[in-house]
């Protein structure tokens, strides 16, 4: 197999993770809760909404609100909740909503999608071209293959809605998979399928855009991840609020209700974390390590993985030895060694002016190869953040 292959083959039919007894639904800082503690909520009822946008987040099942904390609402599943009844309820309104969505365009469509839990506002911004990034984001991930092969209707619905959301004229679909069948549909004929060499870091948005357009950071080109397209499609296809996410765990694609705790998902997949393990959310190269297994999975989450203690040498604060490996792998042609050294000593101005840290794509490869086991990606992110704020101030 090719090193860092992003081609996961056809993938499995997404496996439904059974609903847990407790849900932890998280949301962004600008959200306010629209339910009270101990309130009983129905499946699909709004739990919280954004203050400035129409965006909401919805209850995945019927249940009782047990706790409202900053950025999250905990819910206990109602024991009498009859899932079948929930689904059967008001199919009328759902199909009406679906028809209404089909007729909307641009900002109005984004507004309507927002009330159903999908954040599509950025997609309505002026753009000349849209690049759908349908590569598995990282090696080892499989959900893209599953989505394209087993949920083609959802993907198609998402791609169609995308065409109505964005004012762009040119459309690209970048993938490693046989996507021919997807585009037999007349309404999607404007998408040009692009198939770059499917090896990480080709899945970086900037590289997908380059593969499609041949240019580095061209203006007016918008990259959209397949996961976002999938979420839009799920709502557009059913007319019901988004309360699920598709993601992968240990090489298997699953679907789970949002708010399902990581602990529950891992247990369902037979992956009990032990002391000293790392539970990585959203990728081994770029994702974050969970410190709390009660993290409820979110709409945008794409992967959960467990790294057993002792599998890799531990990260250290060792100095750079100058081996140059990070330079060899950097897709942005940067000098991560120098940037990390400057960041280490707080020379953020230099990171930007002499070493162009803002070109970093945050692929994490420099950290993957660093023989000194320096926290390279962390240095890169710190340097980007700090040098950006320097720029704002100056």
């Amino acid at each position: 197999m090719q090193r860092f292959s992003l081609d996961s083959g056809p993938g499995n039919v997404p496996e439904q993770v059974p609903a847990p007894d407790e849900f932890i639904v998280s949301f962004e800082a600008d959200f306010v809760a629209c339910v009270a503690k101990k309130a009983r909520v129905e499946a699909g009822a709004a739990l919280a909404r954004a203050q400035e946008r129409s965006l909401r987040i919805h209850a995945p099942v019927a249940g009782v609100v047990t706790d409202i904390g900053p950025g999250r609402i905990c819910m206990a599943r109602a024991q009498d909740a009859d899932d079948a009844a929930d689904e059967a309820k008001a199919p009328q309104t759902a199909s009406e909503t679906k028809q209404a969505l089909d007729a909307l365009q641009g900002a109005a469509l984004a507004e309507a999608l927002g009330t159903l839990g999908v954040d599509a506002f950025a997609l309505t911004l002026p753009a000349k071209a849209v690049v759908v990034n349908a590569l598995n984001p990282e090696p080892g991930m499989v959900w893209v293959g599953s989505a394209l092969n087993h949920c083609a209707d959802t993907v198609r619905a998402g791609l169609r809605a995308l065409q109505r959301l964005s004012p762009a004229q040119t459309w690209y679909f970048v993938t490693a998979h046989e996507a021919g069948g997807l585009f037999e549909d007349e309404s999607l004929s404007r998408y040009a399928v692009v198939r770059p060499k499917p090896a990480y870091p080709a899945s970086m948005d900037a590289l997908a855009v380059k593969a499609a357009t041949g240019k580095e950071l061209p203006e007016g080109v918008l990259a959209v991840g397949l996961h976002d397209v999938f979420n839009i499609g799920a709502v557009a296809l059913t007319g019901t609020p988004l309360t699920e996410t598709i993601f992968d765990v240990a090489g298997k694609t699953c679907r789970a209700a949002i708010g399902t705790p990581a602990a529950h998902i891992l247990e369902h997949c037979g992956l009990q974390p032990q002391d000293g393990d790392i539970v990585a959310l959203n990728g081994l190269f770029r994702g974050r390590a969970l410190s709390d297994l009660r993290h409820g999975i979110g709409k945008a989450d794409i992967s959960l993985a467990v790294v057993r203690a002792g599998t890799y040498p531990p990260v250290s604060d060792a100095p750079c030895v100058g081996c140059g490996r990070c330079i060899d792998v950097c897709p942005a042609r940067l000098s991560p060694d120098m940037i990390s050294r400057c960041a280490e000593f707080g020379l953020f101005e230099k990171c930007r002016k002499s070493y162009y840290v803002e070109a970093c794509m945050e692929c994490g490869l420099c950290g993957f190869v660093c023989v000194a086991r320096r926290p390279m990606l962390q240095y890169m992110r710190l340097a980007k953040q700090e040098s950006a704020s320097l720029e704002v101030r100056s």
Partner: protein
Amino acid sequence: MKSGNPETGGMVPCLLIGESAPHIHCGRTIRGLMLDIIIAMLPSAVLAIVYWGVDALRVMALAVAVAVLAEAACCRLMGRKSSIDDLNAVVVGLLVAFMLPAGVAWWAVVVGVGLSICLGKMVFGGIGANPVPAALVGYAAISVCWGIHVDPDTVQLATSWSDPLTKLKFFGAAGIEKFGYADLLFGRQIGGLGSANVGMILLGGLYLVARRTVRWQIPLAFLLGTAVVSGLFYMAAPETYAPPLFHLLTGGVMFAAFFIATDYACSPSRTAAMFLYGVLGGALVVLIRVYGMHVDGTAFAVLLASLVVPYCVLLRPKPFGVK
């Protein structure tokens, strides 16, 4: 941090590690690289013991011991965690030993290795911060201050072999007629106890390249630099100058190309810069041998070439999307 709530999902609470991404790693560490370098030096070390017996063993063991002790002492004085388990001190000690003749006095080993570790590496902040290869600092210091005590010709008396470079220096091309290339390749010459075993050094060097412990560009460029410049001299006056292969197989050229010039901290990392640096180092060897007062000059050639490395940033490509 405690995580996992027995009330949720029935998980046992466990301590999770909150490291930053990436959460996976290629597995290669500094210690691993150093171990590779030590392995690559073994064939030549063994041959040195075969040729020079306990003398060679004594120098190598003393050098390694002094290097490790000096580094441990420096770490302690600097109030930082000991770095000896990354094995870099062992490598530096061995590198110095390889450049010294087997008959060298014990105090020269101690001074040379001690200076390499303390002045060549630790004062700059340890591994990765040295502006020139650490091993060269001690070696250059003792060969400048007590040249006669580290000169293979003066300390290696109990042998019928001789130093081909001395012969070249004082007798010209006529002086080297008796050296067969096979002799040179198998180390039947006097010089550094390890570096003179040119064939074994080449073997170890190829291992390092195959393992990608060192990049092939630097050794190749270095050897090319030596071969091309000595070739030019040889073409101009074959009766005065030695042929290129002679230069490649004598003194520290092969050793420097694979083991010294490839020092991570003070060699460049991008292809164009690596070639520039390598060719420059290789060319300087010949120039020093022809015009300089040192018979070998490899060490000084690498030291000089290191000086251009800071300017190599000028040879880097434009970053992604930067116009």
